[in-house]
């Protein structure tokens, strides 16, 4: 994971060298190195982010005259039923996806963290879906979960279970999207947990074994506590991913059936780019940003209080 390397200690030979003021030439050289990338990054992030705030105070369709409306866009969000439904769907998805991706990642990491025959093949098989795009995953999802001839229903029929509606069923569509998100993203959590497992000193596990702990006990008493910081980090990361779900919804259900998979970002995209409500869309984006930030800070503070150093 990301570790910040410590700055080099200041040179101790010759204090003059250390005190030397930064010369103009050095400053020009320095900015020459960093300026091109900075223009791109800041020009496409901080500048539009500030612009979005001013947009959120306007009513504007991109063509006519923009109308200053103050906080009306934010007020509109509060009573909006469609947005409330989208928030609910996003919450459901987050509650399904985040715990499942942590559990699956941990389980796969434990399963793959051993030296047995074919382990390389298992690892490749589990990691390769990571390269599948949302577009590709969407097409595969509609095929595998097709109610008539999809593989999933074929298996169910074979087992004597009635075929399901999957993406065409309001209650199941979000579950299907969760399953396919997990398929594509399991590699990430698995890799992170695998690295964390290999960081655990083998002496600790050895000591536990000598003390008579079985595999199950040593996992929960020794290994698991060591994974807490990583778990906090991954949970926050996956939470941010989940709350921003858009593309897999677009490539599978387009928000349907009957709006059952319309997420916050899907709602935002629809408001901004289908109905050209640039001001209102920006307000929703800022609302989402604020909620994400607050939740993240909350989790970090909570984990600090529980003495888990995640960052």
């Amino acid at each position, binding site marked *: 994971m990301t570790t910040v390397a410590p700055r080099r200690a200041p040179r101790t030979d010759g204090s003059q060298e250390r005190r030397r003021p930064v010369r103009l030439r*050095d400053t020009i*050289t320095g900015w020459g*190195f*960093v300026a*091109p*990338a*900075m223009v*791109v*990054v*800041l020009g*496409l*992030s*901080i500048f*539009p*982010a500030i*612009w*979005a705030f001013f*947009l959120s105070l306007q009513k504007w369709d*991109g063509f006519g005259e923009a109308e200053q409306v103050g906080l009306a866009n934010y007020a509109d969000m509060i009573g909006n039923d469609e947005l409330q439904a989208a928030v609910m769907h996003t919450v459901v998805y987050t509650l399904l996806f985040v715990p499942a991706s942590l559990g699956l990642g941990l389980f796969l990491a434990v399963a*793959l963290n051993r*030296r*047995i*025959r*074919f*382990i390389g093949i*298992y690892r*490749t*098989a*589990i*990691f*390769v*879906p990571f*390269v599948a*795009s*949302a577009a590709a995953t*969407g*097409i*595969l999802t509609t*095929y595998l979960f097709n109610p*008539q001839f999809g593989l999933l229903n074929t298996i169910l029929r074979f087992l004597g279970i009635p075929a399901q509606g999957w993406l065409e069923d309001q209650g199941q569509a979000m579950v299907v999207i969760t399953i396919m998100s997990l*398929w*594509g993203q399991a*590699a*990430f959590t698995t*890799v*992170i947990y695998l*690295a964390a497992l*290999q960081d655990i000193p083998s002496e600790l596990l050895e000591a536990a074994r000598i003390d008579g702990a079985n595999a199950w006990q040593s996992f929960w008493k020794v290994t698991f506590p060591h994974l807490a910081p990583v778990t906090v980090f991954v949970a926050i990361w996956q939470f941010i991913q989940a709350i921003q779900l*858009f*593309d897999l919804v677009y*490539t599978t259900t387009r928000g349907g059936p009957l709006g059952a998979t319309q997420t916050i970002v899907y709602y935002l*995209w629809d408001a*901004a*780019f289908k109905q050209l409500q640039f001001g209102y*869309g920006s307000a929703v*984006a*800022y609302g*989402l*940003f604020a909620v*994400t930030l607050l939740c993240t800070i909350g989790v970090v503070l909570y984990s600090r209080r529980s003495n888990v150093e995640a960052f």
Partner: protein
Amino acid sequence: MTTIQTPAHRDAPDSPLSGAAVPRRQPLSRRPRRRFSLWHLVLVPIAVVFVIPFVQMFVTSVTPESEINTFPPRILPTHITFDGFAKLFAESDILLWLGNTVIVSTVAIASHLVLCSLAGYGFARLKFRGRTMGFLMIVATIMIPTQLLMIPTYILFSRLGLIDSLGAAIVPWLASAFGIFLMRQFFLSLPAELEEAALIDGCTRLQVFFRVILPLAKPALATLAIFTLLGSWNDLVWPLIAINNDQVFTLQLGITNFQGARRTDWALLMAGNVVATLPLIVFFLFAQKQFVATMSFSGLKG
């Protein structure tokens, strides 16, 4: 960065201890058999489940149309046909879209490697006024979600005349905060003595950078290249907003559009899917280690 290794077993059968120094108990079995691990029973089904979607993709792309929508469904086709691919190439601009995506990804990777390593080196090694402030601003942008940027960026690009051009897909990928951060961390880990020697020999900063530093940065550059490739190749949301003209579609946009227009043309859809996905799968199989390093560093997906 993290690399995944198989844990070394102390009592590994091929360790020196089992060699000539220790008298063998069983001289006949030279290669000691590993005990069958019960984990195979867990891992085989999991591995199968994970590859099934791709298997279905490949199989369906070469299945005759008449055998796809049948009931009861069949698992394997009676014979292989490339009709789906033929139809795909005849009835769509898939090769054009492939070309567009290749252009976007190539420019993105080249620009990312140059701009981000220059900036990363500047922030790691050069002393100049405003350096700390500049770097903090870059790091702060990682927090800003893309949803917040879509609308103003769309307006900005339409004023610049970039909408409905390949430029719209390329410009956001010219450099990234993540890339700058990654390269800075890497350069901080290099010993400074290397470049000091070259500077004393009379090289300029740029010469030092290109001749001494960059050749050492290959692992970090590989990570950055894969990050940029995955992101730019698979990007859907931004092209969806910025490109409506099917002559400048990217592959992802093209196959998504198909999916809406030709809902049941499965052989064709899967053939398009193969074209869009196979390059990355092949690449993954050859450079799995670098992909894993990229994953653990960025967590990027889509």
